[in-house]
C-alpha cells in the first residue's frame, strides 16, 4: 500500500542512545520540578507577605510564566540574558526556562489550594502557641501540597514534554536532542521520532503511575 519502506531496525539500533537521552530528560524534569516547587513556595509566601515589592515580584513572575510561551522563556534564558553578558550552557538555560515556567504555574496552583484550606486551621495552630511561620510551615504547607498534588503531577508531565524545547538553545543530549541528531545522520525521521514518541509516552505514564503510588503512601488521610 505504501511505497515508503519502514526501516525500524535503523531506529531500534539507536534506542540505547535515546534511552541515555531519556535519562537526561528525566534529570532536567525532576530538577526543574524540585526547584520549581521550592520557588513556588517562596513566591506563595511573597504573595501573602503583604509587602508590595515582594508580592509585585511574585505576581510578575507568575503572570509572565503563565502568559508567554515556554519556548520563549527558554530562548530568553539563553539568548536574551546573554545580552547582559550572562552565559548559561544549554543544560542550565533549559533548566532555568522550565523551572521559571514550573514555579509560575505551581505558585498559582498553590494559591488556589491555600484558599481551599479553612482559615480556622491557622487559628488552631496559632492558639496552640505556634508562630505564624510555624503555623504556615507545619499546618498549611503540607495540606496545600496535598491539595495541589494533581496539578503538580500534571506540571511534572509538562516539564518532561518541555525538555523537547531544549534544542533551540543548543541542547543535544536530551531525548529530543539525541533524536534530532540521529535524524541528521540517517534521516529516518518517521521511525526515529515515532520511537522517541513512544519513549516519551512511557516516561509520562511511569510518572503518572509513580504519582499515584506516592499519593497513596503520602495521603492516607
Amino acid at each position, binding site marked *: 500500500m505504501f511505497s515508503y519502506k519502514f526501516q525500524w531496525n535503523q531506529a531500534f539500533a539507536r534506542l540505547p542512545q535515546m534511552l541515555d537521552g531519556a535519562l537526561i530528560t528525566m534529570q532536567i524534569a525532576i530538577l526543574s520540578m524540585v526547584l520549581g516547587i521550592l520557588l513556588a513556595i517562596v513566591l506563595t509566601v511573597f504573595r501573602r507577605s503583604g509587602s508590595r515589592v515582594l508580592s509585585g515580584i511574585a505576581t510578575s513572575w507568575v503572570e509572565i510564566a503563565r502568559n508567554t510561551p515556554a519556548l520563549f522563556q527558554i530562548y530568553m534564558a539563553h539568548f536574551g540574558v546573554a545580552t547582559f553578558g550572562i552565559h548559561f550552557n544549554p543544560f542550565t538555560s533549559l533548566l532555568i526556562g522550565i523551572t521559571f515556567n514550573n514555579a509560575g504555574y505551581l505558585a498559582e496552583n498553590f494559591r488556589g489550594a491555600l484558599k481551599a484550606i479553612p482559615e480556622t486551621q491557622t487559628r488552631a495552630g496559632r492558639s496552640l502557641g505556634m508562630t505564624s511561620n510555624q503555623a504556615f510551615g507545619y499546618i498549611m504547607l503540607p*495540606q496545600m501540597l496535598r491539595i495541589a498534588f494533581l496539578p503538580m503531577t500534571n506540571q511534572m508531565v509538562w516539564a518532561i514534554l518541555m525538555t523537547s524545547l531544549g534544542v533551540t538553545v543548543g541542547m543535544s543530549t536530551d531525548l529530543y536532542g539525541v533524536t534530532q541528531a540521529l535524524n541528521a545522520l540517517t534521516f529516518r525521521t518517521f521511525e526515529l521520532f515515532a520511537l522517541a514518541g513512544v519513549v516519551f509516552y512511557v516516561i509520562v505514564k511511569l510518572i503518572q503511575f509513580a504519582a499515584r503510588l506516592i499519593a497513596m503512601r503520602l495521603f*492516607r*488521610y
Partner: protein
Amino acid sequence: MIEIEKVHKSFGQLKVLKGIDLRVAKGEVLSVIGGSGSGKSTLLTCINGLEPIDSGRILVDGTEVHAKSTDLNKLRRKIGIVFQQWNAFPHLTVVENVMLAQRKVLGRSKPEAEAEAVRQLSHVGLGDKLKVYPSRLSGGQQQRMAIARALAMSPHYMLFDEVTSALDPQLVGEVLDTLRMLAAEGMTMICVTHEMKFAREVSDRVAFFHKGVMAEIAAPAELFGAPKSEELRAFLSATH
C-alpha cells in the same frame, strides 16, 4: 486569673464588644450564654490575643495580652482554646495532632511528646485511636482530640467555644462528659455554650451576653431561676 477590663472591640463599623468587665478566678468554671452574634466567640479570641481589641485591657496572670511587649506565642501556651468547627489537622494522625505543638512550641523530645499525647488522649477516651487520621473520627471524637491537643500544652486556662453545637445530638453527651471531668479536676474554664443543662450543672457562674454587652452574670441557680432582664427571659424561653 483572667481579668477583662472595659474591653471594646469592633469589626469595621460593627461594634461587637461594648465594654466588657469580667474576672475569672483560678479554678472557676464560667459559662457564657447568649444569642447568635452577641460577641461570645469574639471575646474568647480576644482573650488569647488572636484578635486585637480597640480599648480596655485583658490581663492573664497579670500579663497584659495586648501590650506590645507581650510574647503572644508564649502567653498562648497558658491558654488552651477549642473551637466550634472541628479543626483537627487533617494531614496528621490523632497522636501526631497532639504532638505537633508540643514539639514545635514547647520543644519537647519525640518520646516525651508522644507519652504526653498518649496520656491526654487516653484521658479523653481516645486511647485506641492514636494512629488514625481525623477524617476517620466522628465529630465528637474530633472535638475530644482537640481538647486533648490543647491539654497537652499544660494550659492554665481552657476556653471552649460552643464545642458541641456542630455535633449530632447523640455525640454531644460524650464531649460534655469530658468537660465535666475537666471541671471536676479543677481546671479554670470559660465555656461558651448553648447547653443550658450543662451550664447549670457545671458552672460556678454563668454570664449572659446580649448585643456585645454582658447583661447578667450570676450563679446558675440565680441566673436561670430568677432572670432579671427581659432579654434573658426571652432568650431562656426561646431555647426551650
